[in-house]
Every structure is written in structure tokens, then in C-alpha cells.
């Protein structure tokens, strides 16, 4: 078990990791997507750094983290379970444990489609390695929305699932030849108690399961009972959410969606988490 698991490696996450390390805490940090800052052409309002591109800044942040021996691990967090004194975290099938959690995945761009949340767990799945085995010798649609989707589609086909791959990109040569391919986007999941079909534009495709492989899982699907306001996670002065031991920092907590705020919130979250861990040790 480590002290703190940080989810998301943008400015808030890296700042949290660095500050947790400086407080002598053990940290693991996971990331599953490219950071938006890298795409900013120019940042002028981060004190001490001006006329810099987002990529230059992001590279500096990564350099800082690496110099402190923080390795960003590639992995999508699928769910988090509070266990009383600690948390169990499912990173695409691998289980890790930590005393505190810091959520810093940035703005949630996850747009649910009709039928999705109603049928989650009833044929709708966010994790191929988690639920794939249940659909051996059955039909599954894999909706390509991340870099790993192709690999996971191949995995599913490999264990005996009859896969249809739906993507807005042209068919990749790396896609298993036995996999059916449809160029398009899912617009609806159909079914009352279990998934019966999906809609792709005007076409209806019958299926037993649909795997929605996005870059990230929506925070509210990640952990049960997490309080949000609109698209953002609610936090207190110490960046702690309504779930004790779970913090949120950066764009994920709301406006302003700015670099300096993200870095500051990462620091506040990490220092408070570290303090709470020290207090527990004393008792």
C-alpha cells in the first residue's frame, strides 16, 4: 500500500505528487490521456513564466516530477472503493491500495449517450478486461473512443467474444481480421433490463454487450456517492470531497480552468492528505 494515489497527471496531479513527496509520502500517479495544457499555444498568466507555450511548461513540470523520482504510470482508473482506513483502486484490472486519493483528471468531457447509465452493468461496460469473459461466444460492440480501444477489441476477440468495432476512424490494419468493423458513432443503447442493441446513426445493430472505451471514466461512476455540482466535483477549503480521504484538484473542481489554480489546488490537497496521514500515525 502507498500513502497517496493521484489520478491524472496534468499540472494539478503533478503538483500534488511533488508536494506529497516533499512531505515524505509514497505516491503513485496514473494517467490515461494527453494533457490539455500541452495544447495551449501560449500561457502568460503563470507567475514567473511568461511567453511560454503550454507544451514547454508541461515538459518543465514533468522534468520536475521525474527529478524527484515520480514516475507517471500509464493506466485508466476504472473504480475506487473506500475500505474504511484505505482505498482500493482498480487500474484497468490491476488492484492498488492507498490511504488517500487525489482526483485530478481535468475537465470531464465524458458525454453519456441515451440508455448508457441505465444499462451500465446490464451489458454496458467500461472495462474489457473486467467484464470480457462474461461475453464469450456472445456479441459485443466495442466503441472506439481512446487509444486502447483497438487493443481491447483484439483482446475480446481473442478470448472468444464476437466483436464489432465501431469507430469514426478508418479501419486499422492492426485490428484483428475476424472483427467486424463499422464506420460511425454510437448514438443510443437500446434495451429495457439488458442491452439488446445499439444505434449507430439510423442503423440498429443487435448485441449482447457494448464496451465504451473512453480515455477516462466519469468521476461519479468512479466512486460511489461522490458529490458534484454540474460537471465539477464539490470540495472544501482543503480540496477534500464529501468522501473522507478523497481529494480533488485542478480543473475537475471548477472554474477558473487555469494553470496556477490547478498547481495550487494540487499542493493544498497533497499537504492536507499528508497531514491527515501523519495524524493517524500519531494516534
Amino acid at each position, binding site marked *: 500500500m502507498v500513502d497517496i494515489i493521484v489520478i491524472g497527471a496534468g499540472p494539478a496531479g503533478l503538483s500534488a505528487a511533488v508536494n506529497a513527496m516533499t512531505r515524505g509520502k509514497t505516491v503513485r500517479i496514473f494517467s490515461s490521456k494527453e494533457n490539455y495544457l500541452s495544447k495551449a499555444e501560449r500561457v502568460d498568466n503563470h507567475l514567473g513564466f511568461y511567453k511560454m507555450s503550454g507544451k514547454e511548461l508541461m515538459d518543465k513540470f514533468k522534468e520536475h516530477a521525474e527529478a524527484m523520482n515520480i514516475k507517471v504510470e500509464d493506466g485508466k482508473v476504472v473504480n475506487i472503493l473506500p475500505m474504511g482506513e484505505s482505498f482500493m483502486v482498480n487500474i484497468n484490472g490491476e*488492484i492498488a491500495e492507498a490511504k488517500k486519493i487525489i482526483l485530478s483528471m481535468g475537465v470531464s468531457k465524458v458525454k453519456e449517450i441515451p440508455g448508457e447509465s441505465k444499462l451500465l452493468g446490464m451489458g454496458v461496460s467500461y*472495462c474489457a478486461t473486467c467484464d470480457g469473459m462474461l461475453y464469450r461466444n456472445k456479441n459485443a460492440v466495442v466503441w472506439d473512443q481512446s487509444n486502447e480501444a483497438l487493443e481491447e477489441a483484439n483482446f475480446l476477440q481473442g478470448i472468444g467474444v464476437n466483436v464489432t468495432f465501431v469507430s469514426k476512424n478508418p479501419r486499422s490494419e492492426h485490428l484483428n481480421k475476424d472483427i467486424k468493423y463499422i464506420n460511425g458513432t454510437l448514438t443510443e443503447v437500446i434495451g429495457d433490463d439488458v442491452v439488446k442493441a445499439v444505434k449507430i446513426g439510423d442503423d440498429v445493430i443487435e448485441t449482447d454487450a457494448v464496451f465504451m472505451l473512453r480515455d477516462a471514466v466519469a468521476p461519479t461512476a468512479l466512486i460511489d456517492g461522490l458529490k458534484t455540482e454540474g460537471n465539477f466535483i464539490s470540495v472544501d477549503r482543503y480540496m477534500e470531497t464529501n468522501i473522507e480521504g478523497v481529494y480533488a484538484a485542478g480543473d475537475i473542481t471548477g472554474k477558473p480552468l487555469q494553470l496556477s489554480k490547478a498547481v495550487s489546488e494540487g499542493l493544498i490537497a497533497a499537504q492536507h492528505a499528508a497531514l491527515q496521514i501523519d495524524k493517524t500515525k500519531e494516534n
Partner: protein
Amino acid sequence: MTEKITYVKSTSEFDELLAKEKLVLVDFWATWCAPCRMIAPVIEQLADKYDGKVAVAKVDVDQNQELSIRYGIQSIPTVILFNDGKVESKEIGVKPLASFTKMLDKHTA
């Protein structure tokens, strides 16, 4: 590992359990399922906490496909509370201890 959990080996064993006990909490799981490993300790805590009030059982869906088809298990972990042999309520996916205690307290209080 607590001895209070029944590891179901067959459909007939399962049916006997349902016939014998009023309240039965059943965790449908599989060895390859990571989220199932996450809730395993939660299920053990429940077995201890509700000892004598609720029978707790685990069904490996790979070894008991008949049962998983009968109860339409589409995703694991799925935890079902049976009351007099009938499905009373269901929790799908990784849930904290509190969601299960809430479910059980309604029937044991």
C-alpha cells in the same frame, strides 16, 4: 478468510441453501475479475457482521453457469439478496460496505 461464507459448488447446493435460509446474500464473482477481488473483503465483513441473521454465499460464475444464466448476471461483481428464495434486491459493481449494510439492515432490524 472467514468460514462463514458458503462457496457454492452446484445448482442443487444453491437451491438447498435458498430453501433452508430466509435471507441469503450471494456474491456472483469469478477468479479473473479484478473488481470482484476488491469487494471480497467487504463480503467477508458482511458475513461476520450478519452472522446468524443472513447466510452469505459466493457463486463462481464460470463454475456455475446455470445459476448466472438463471439470474441474468451481465456484469460482475453482482450481489443479490434473496428473501424466501426470491430476489429481494441487487447491487451491481463495486460498492462500499455501507450500500450493503443499508440493504441488509432493512430486513434484519
